[in-house]
């Protein structure tokens, strides 16, 4: 490289250069400033306040009383009822993630391994449509299917295998699976589609069986998709509100509904705050464990 090729600023004195660098750094700061301020006011401070509120007494109307502190709500997390709701939510979120992966992986694999690009794109669009479609509407569709006159109920009664499922836990599970399956499929598809198939080919050439090549090469290589998909399914399942509210009953309350209830008929905002912070913490722990297990693949 000759001096002529270099950028003009390289010839400037180090002092000028430092000045230019500082100006550049301020420009970056001011570009981000509006968003920075917005997020501090409408995200960071509310997050701090909700944590503070979880330690306050409640007034007779259920609102928090600042200045009167208590640990009552954090202790209340140990109540049998609260524990049941919490375990049920984590269990359903876990089950949903596992089933989405089990159904979604062969599905995404099938789409990603179609020979013609046109076919792959066509199938991908077919996944994108439910992915972008209104979530409430998609959940409502199951409400009528699982109700007394619904198709699923008719099939169940005809075969004698099941009755009306609406307002039961299986109904909530079905709704969650239906709602979040596309969130699992898309990252899986992206990971499998970008896979270096030469590596799989090489394994086969070295006399690995089809199953072994899949287990030892394809599966580990698609790990980033598995992790991303699992996070995308687990987080909203854990905080699910619409699905259990429309398809579940009083016996299938999940954390999401339980929190909303605290702010409405339950009239206990500080406890609602405690639950909100807890669900956030649970989610962070799950995400961290997942990242640790998958290494730094994402």
């Amino acid at each position, binding site marked *: 490289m000759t001096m002529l090729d270099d950028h003009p600023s390289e010839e400037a004195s180090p002092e000028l250069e430092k000045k230019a660098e500082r100006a*550049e*750094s301020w*420009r*970056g*700061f001011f570009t*981000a400033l509006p*968003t*920075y301020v*917005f997020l501090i006011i*409408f*995200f*960071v*401070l*509310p997050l701090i306040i*909700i944590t503070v*509120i979880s330690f306050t007494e409640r007034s007779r109307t259920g609102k*928090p009383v*600042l200045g009167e502190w208590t640990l009552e709500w954090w202790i209340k997390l140990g109540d049998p009822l609260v524990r049941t709701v919490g375990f049920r939510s984590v269990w359903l979120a876990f089950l949903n993630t596992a089933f989405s992966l089990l159904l979604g992986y*062969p*599905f995404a694999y*099938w*789409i*990603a*391994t179609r*020979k013609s690009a046109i076919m*792959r794109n066509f*199938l991908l*669009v077919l*996944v994108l*449509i*439910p992915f972008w*479609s*209104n979530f*409430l*509407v*998609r959940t*409502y*569709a199951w*409400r*009528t299917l699982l109700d007394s*006159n*619904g*198709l699923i109920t008719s099939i169940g009664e005809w075969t004698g295998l099941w009755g009306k499922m609406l307002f039961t836990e299986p109904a909530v599970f079905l709704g969650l699976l*239906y709602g979040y399956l596309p969130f699992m499929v898309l990252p899986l598809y992206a990971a499998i589609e970008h896979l270096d*198939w030469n590596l799989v080919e090489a394994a086969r050439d070295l006399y690995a069986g*089809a199953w072994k090549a899949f287990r030892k090469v394809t599966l580990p290589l698609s790990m980033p998709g598995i992790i991303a998909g699992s996070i995308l399914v687990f987080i*909203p399942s*854990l*905080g699910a*509100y*619409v699905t259990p509210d*429309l398809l579940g009953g009083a016996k299938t309350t999940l954390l999401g509904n339980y*929190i*909303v209830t605290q702010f409405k008929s339950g009239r206990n905002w500080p406890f609602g*705050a405690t639950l*909100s*912070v807890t*669900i956030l913490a649970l*989610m962070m722990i799950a*995400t961290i464990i997942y990242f640790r297990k998958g290494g730094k693949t994402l």
Partner: protein
Amino acid sequence: MSVQQGTAHRPWVDRLLTINGWLIFGFLYLPIFILVIYSFSDSKIVGIWGGFTWKWYGRMFGNPEMMGALSNSIKVAIISTVIATILGTTAALALDRYRKWLGKGAFDVIMYMPVIIPEVTMGAMLLIWFTQVLPINLSIWTIILGHIAFSASFVAIIVRARLANLDDSLEEAARDLYANRWTTFRRVTLPLIMPGVMGGALLALTLSLDDVIITEFVQGPGASLLPVYVFGLIKRQVTPEINAVSTLMLGISMVLVFVSLGFQARSRSSEGNKEE
């Protein structure tokens, strides 16, 4: 030899995968089809076919509450999308195009948190913030602020991905040709990242039109949005009118899917040009 998509499977494996694939598509689409079909059924009970009718659509458009909620939804979606897109795009530019600045590390973390935080937590903390700390009455504006707070981050992620794929030699060339910063941005950077910006905006629009939880927390009295209004209706009583409005909402989603696919196709072709 070009890399083949996938290795050769045994025929029975491929057949099983294909059957499984179409079964899952059936699972994904059948409920939606049935929902749409019953919006045309001349029977008060959803699930019993009573002959073809348009009357539920007539009822829907004649329902002032429903139409009020629809116009609120559109208003909120448009305003929050415009602001979230501006905030998200500038944030992505600051993070990608400027190497070091005051508080960049913290900003990088804060920017991504709204994406991974559960919506219930977000709704609860905004409700407490608006009613217990700030002297604001809940209204359509608190809904808009709430929607911006979570969708700006999604825009930032998409635009940043686009920026990361562009090399900055074009911008440098423009600057070497004595274009000032603003001209460089307007004439070079912005057109290049436009597909990402539009993709982000469409996602923000969809998120706003889909949201139930945050809206339910921060809405004021009498200013509901369509999904929250419909959610309330479903809980009271299921009627074919709900199927009709659901079909309308699906139609809006569908339009957004195809617009976004159009932008993706254009962005891919412009990236292709870059490689040539």
